[in-house]
């Protein structure tokens, strides 16, 4: 795999790491199976791209994109909390609605950011450093900028989840009855968590638009699968109880997932082409889901031997 392909995979992995963090928040912390992300990701991209294209500065555009995503999360939470619509269904409703909203926001199916100044360009000053290291300038710059953002978001989220409020949010997902008995307004926690989750996903969308140079109404398809794949892959390679390490696992999962896909599509031996992406995705997610449950045959053999040894020594004494 070429250097440029590897850097590209890491960049996309880092952008989708934010999706993974959002999905972790909804699926794992709140235990809320939320498909809104398929709509809030392109929403973030659409809002940021449109605002930048009409001349707003990239920072404000990105912040407004985050707010838009948070609003989408609130709608899903509202459908569930206020009207008791099944979580999955509530999120699908919002997702479907967002497709039209995204088209309205952009006014057309896609917006190009070619020649526009983005968040990435604020840091253009450090490009010569990459040149000196022999790395491709623009691609490396994107990785560094998105990487820094991901680190900041992860640190803030990790700190939030060990605060009193964050602890209450985790209890809301883990045991809502106990949470209510401890005075936690579970409805409010659901609203906040869903807003935060979809705000993160919209941030990912906004960064996607700014690194890829465009926003398209179809970029959201399968976002939930990619995010969930990253979360599950992270949990498989880095099983832990520490909440901060769990967040880091999501990021690693996302990058590894992208590298695996790039590797699969780039290796000529497998004969795969770009259109096979969805198949490769499904196979990878399937493997990630099966792996944690699968037993290592070597390990179970060793255990059996050890048990047999114990039984023998027991009989001897």
């Amino acid at each position, binding site marked *: 795999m070429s250097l440029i392909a590897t850097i590209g995979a890491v960049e996309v992995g880092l952008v989708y790491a934010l999706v993974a963090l959002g999905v972790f928040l909804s699926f794992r912390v709140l235990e809320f199976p939320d498909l809104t992300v398929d709509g809030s990701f392109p929403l973030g991209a659409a809002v940021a791209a449109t605002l930048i294209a009409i001349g707003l500065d990239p920072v404000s555009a990105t912040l407004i994109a985050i707010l838009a995503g948070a609003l989408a999360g609130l709608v899903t939470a509202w459908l569930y909390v206020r009207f008791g619509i099944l979580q999955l269904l509530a999120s699908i409703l919002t997702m479907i609605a967002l497709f039209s909203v995204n088209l309205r926001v952009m006014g057309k199916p896609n917006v190009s950011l070619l020649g526009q100044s983005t968040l990435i360009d604020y840091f253009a000053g450090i490009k010569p450093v990459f040149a000196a290291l022999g790395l491709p300038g623009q691609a490396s710059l994107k990785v560094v900028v998105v990487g820094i953002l991901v680190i900041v978001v992860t640190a803030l989220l990790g700190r939030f989840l060990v605060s009193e409020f964050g602890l209450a949010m*985790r209890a809301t997902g883990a045991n809502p009855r106990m949470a209510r008995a401890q005075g936690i307004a579970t409805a409010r926690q659901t609203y906040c968590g869903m807003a935060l989750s979809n705000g993160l996903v919209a941030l990912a969308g906004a960064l996607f638009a700014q690194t890829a140079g465009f926003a398209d109404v179809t970029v959201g398809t399968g976002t939930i699968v990619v995010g969930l794949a990253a979360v599950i892959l992270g949990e498989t390679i880095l099983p832990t109880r520490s909440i901060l390490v769990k967040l880091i696992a999501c990021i690693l999962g996302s990058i590894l997932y992208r590298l695996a896909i790039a590797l699969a599509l780039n290796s000529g031996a497998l004969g795969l082409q770009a259109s096979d992406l969805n198949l490769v995705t499904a196979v990878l997610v399937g493997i990630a889901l099966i792996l944690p449950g699968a037993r290592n045959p070597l390990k179970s053999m060793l255990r059996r031997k050890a048990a047999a040894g114990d039984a023998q020594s027991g009989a001897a004494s």
Partner: protein
Amino acid sequence: MITVSAAEVTFGRGTPLQTRALRGLDLSIPAGEFVTVIGSNGAGKSTLLNVLSGDTTPEKGKVEIDGIDVTRWSAPKRAGLVARVFQDPMAGTCEAMSIEENMALAHARGRRRGLGLALHGRERALFRERLALLGLGLENRLGDSMGLLSGGQRQAVSLLMATLAGMKILLLDEHTAALDPRTADFVLKLTQRIIAEHGLTALMVTHSMRNALDYGTRTVMLHEGRVAFDIAGERRRNLDVPDLLNLFATVRGEQLADDSLLLG
């Protein structure tokens, strides 16, 4: 003083399964009293507990805590006044979270939860000190996940959690029913000790007539959503389980099989 007056609760109104769980129940508990509640299945014990905790809102009647009408308050809003230990050891704690995190959740009961760290050295020291009182060695396992504890250990921690923040009444919902006899005995003794030490007002639902008489200062029997009898003081001290059964029979004017009460 906790007062429930003329409380009525009906489940599944208008359906063939309509059940009148509470039918104008009246009960007053002065501060510092430890009431044990008995009654057969469907007598309204759990519903009474839910009405007190705010999980069920009565259709008619009133719930007052120290003169404040809390009838329409939700369970979270009432949590500063009411602490609860559930029957299921899994229900009262979050098993994925650590012992100290569970205790931090309970420590903030009835308070606004901000963005400050949930656990500081100060809290950890307090939790360690409280856990040491249990004599289970849990004070050295603050970071262990709650899921690693046995049912009895969990109920013991749940009891501690209930006392970490202020309250007007402690509700115990058959909190030893899921435990083996020895552990149940340990948790009951611990309950009595904690209630005595903190001078708590408590209401304990139990299926065991023995426990209902051995623990607490007053015993209330519910039947068909009302208080069937209510005994305390000298009269209660002289009472034994068979007397309790007789008492029930005379009050209701019907014969009752022992096991339907003991096991029901």
